[in-house]
């Protein structure tokens, strides 16, 4: 089902750090850094879906935007289709931007309310000069509309005439327009109604089956959605990846204590099962990325923490079969 490629990896992220300076006082001098992403390494294979799951403040959105090079990473490398893009200028990036697209969370804010649906979807075609004639442009836009399950006759409508689910389809069509091989989906369904979410999930799944080489980085906070759609899942906490595994192992054999508590926090729509499930309720709140705890930054909330956890940053190590975890207690 998945097509093989040269090295098999479309994206490799190596020790990515993204710090945002915090300025204070009269002269707005820098007083600290928000360590939004603090040393993250992972890869995505061509044609697969990597789920990136974490709570707000975990840096998952920042990772996505760094790969899109909407931010200039503080350090680290991002290798996209064999090329290190972490230090490219905006000008050098431009041709690569057709190869990767972003799908946004908010179906309302992500579409320009003054443009027609057709011109929103067609804009990448214009930016990247992908259509040679008006005719070709129109045909391509119509095709994109059909691909995402929208009626091409609705091309001339403006976004507010569409429902939330339809708007998200427009967003998907726009992301597909430039023949991108990597789609970064940043919480694409969390703003939608429950009954609509499944439509978008299924659409994304069908697209991947049809356009074989399509790769997703699926960023979300909802573990059950991520588990449903992803081949592999990376769990983030406070700017670091704590566990990477395939979806089956994640549910059946989670290793990191944070992953465990995250799993237990998600209720299952089954009262019989819920009666039996063990609930791990975490202490306190996720600390500010401005002043992350020392060592393993999960240690203040971790039920298994020992004194060593305060001192050492646990490396992400493979426990076998690609199951990586960063915890010294496992």
């Amino acid at each position, binding site marked *: 089902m998945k097509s093989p490629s040269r090295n098999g990896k479309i994206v490799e992220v190596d020790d990515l750090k993204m710090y945002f300076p915090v300025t204070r006082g009269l002269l707005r001098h820098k007083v600290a850094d928000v360590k939004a992403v603090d040393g993250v390494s992972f890869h995505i294979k061509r044609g697969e879906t990597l789920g990136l799951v974490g709570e707000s403040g975990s840096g998952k959105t920042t990772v996505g935007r760094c790969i899109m090079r909407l931010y200039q990473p503080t350090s680290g490398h991002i290798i996209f289709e064999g090329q290190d893009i972490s230090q490219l200028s905006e000008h050098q990036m431009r041709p690569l931007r057709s190869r990767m697209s972003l799908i946004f969370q908010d179906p309302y804010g992500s579409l320009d309310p003054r443009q027609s649906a057709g011109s929103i979807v067609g804009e990448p075609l214009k930016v990247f000069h992908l259509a040679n004639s008006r005719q070709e442009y129109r045909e391509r836009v119509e095709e994109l509309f059909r691909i995402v399950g929208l009626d091409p006759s609705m091309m001339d409508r403006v976004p507010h005439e569409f429902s939330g689910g339809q708007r998200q389809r427009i967003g998907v069509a726009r992301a597909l327009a430039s023949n991108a091989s990597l789609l970064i989906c940043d919480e694409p369904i969390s703003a939608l109604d429950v009954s609509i979410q499944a439509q978008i999930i299924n659409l994304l799944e069908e697209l991947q089956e049809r356009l074989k080489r399509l790769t997703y980085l699926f960023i979300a906070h909802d573990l059950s959605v991520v588990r449903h759609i992803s081949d592999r899942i990376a769990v983030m906490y406070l700017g670091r990846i704590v566990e990477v595994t395939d979806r089956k192992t994640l549910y059946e054999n989670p290793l990191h204590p944070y992953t465990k508590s*995250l799993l237990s926090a998600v209720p299952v729509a089954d009262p019989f099962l819920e009666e039996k499930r063990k609930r791990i309720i975490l202490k306190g709140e996720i600390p500010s990325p401005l002043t992350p705890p020392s060592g393993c930054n999960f240690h203040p909330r971790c039920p298994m923490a020992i004194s060593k956890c305060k001192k050492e940053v646990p490396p992400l190590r493979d426990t076998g079969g690609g199951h990586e975890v960063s915890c010294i207690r496992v």
Partner: protein
Amino acid sequence: MPVLLEVKNLKTYFKVYHGLVKAVDDISYHIKKKEIVGLVGESGCGKSVSQLSVLQLIPTPPGEIVAGQIIFEGQDLLQFEANGDEMRSIRGGGIAMVFQEPMTSLNPVLTIGRQLTEGLELHLGMDVNEARNRAIELLSMVGIPDADKRIDDYPHQFSGGMRQRVMIAMALSCNPKIIIADEPTTALDVTTQAQLLELMTDLVSRFNASLVIVTHNLGVIARYAQRLYVMYAGRIVESGTAKEIFGNPRHPYTIALLNCVPRLDEEEGRKLVPIEGMPPNLLNMPITCAFKPRCPYHIERCGQDPWPDLKLIEGQHYVRCYVET
């Protein structure tokens, strides 16, 4: 357990520019003492409006409670004037609410303390010092560290989860009999959500109060609620105990809802079954079943006759459907 609150045939309509929105259309439900009840539905199904109607907090105009009875401790709340003395003593004192958006539900220019103590002074007649001490007590009860210092902070100095804890403290402050939590954790992270729901259910039982959880998340209901009501397009379409409904869902909408969300424990390769079409537009609705256009089971009768009545399946399990599923 005795029935604490009984809502009978409540109708709340909104007169808007394009016509009449029947946000809540003839719903009846009850809440018993010390019970946790869930109210499930998608956005726009009228679940929030039905709860705001109980305390007559509907913005009027455009909204109006057109008909019904809301019987709380033997009195019909709808007989009271909306902002009159009797109604105000129920608000916060008898029935308290926790709202969805912790970011916007607290007044940004008043301290947490001020917002907590005003209810205590009003309903429990405490003086300034008593109220302040009680407020500190409540804050530490909901898990806010250094409550005696943080009481003088403003909402923007708290995180979303902490603000929602303050909201819970505020709701509990005057020992209400019922707490209505309107999507209390939707805006929050999963682990915070678990913390808060756990805290809320724990405190509610300590205070001997009942809890109504309004949510679209079936998992939350399955975990915490004893009974639930499923709402669609302003009506209750199915009701019963959690085990009855999750074990044997009968309304096509309930079934569809369960099939369209990913589950943590699902089998590999499970396909979601989306609900076709869109949630109904409550504007100028037909009298026939509003779910019919999206319903895979619908029969001829569904498009002709008005909504069916709720019919008993077994125990406390009722369903509003012509079709035997």
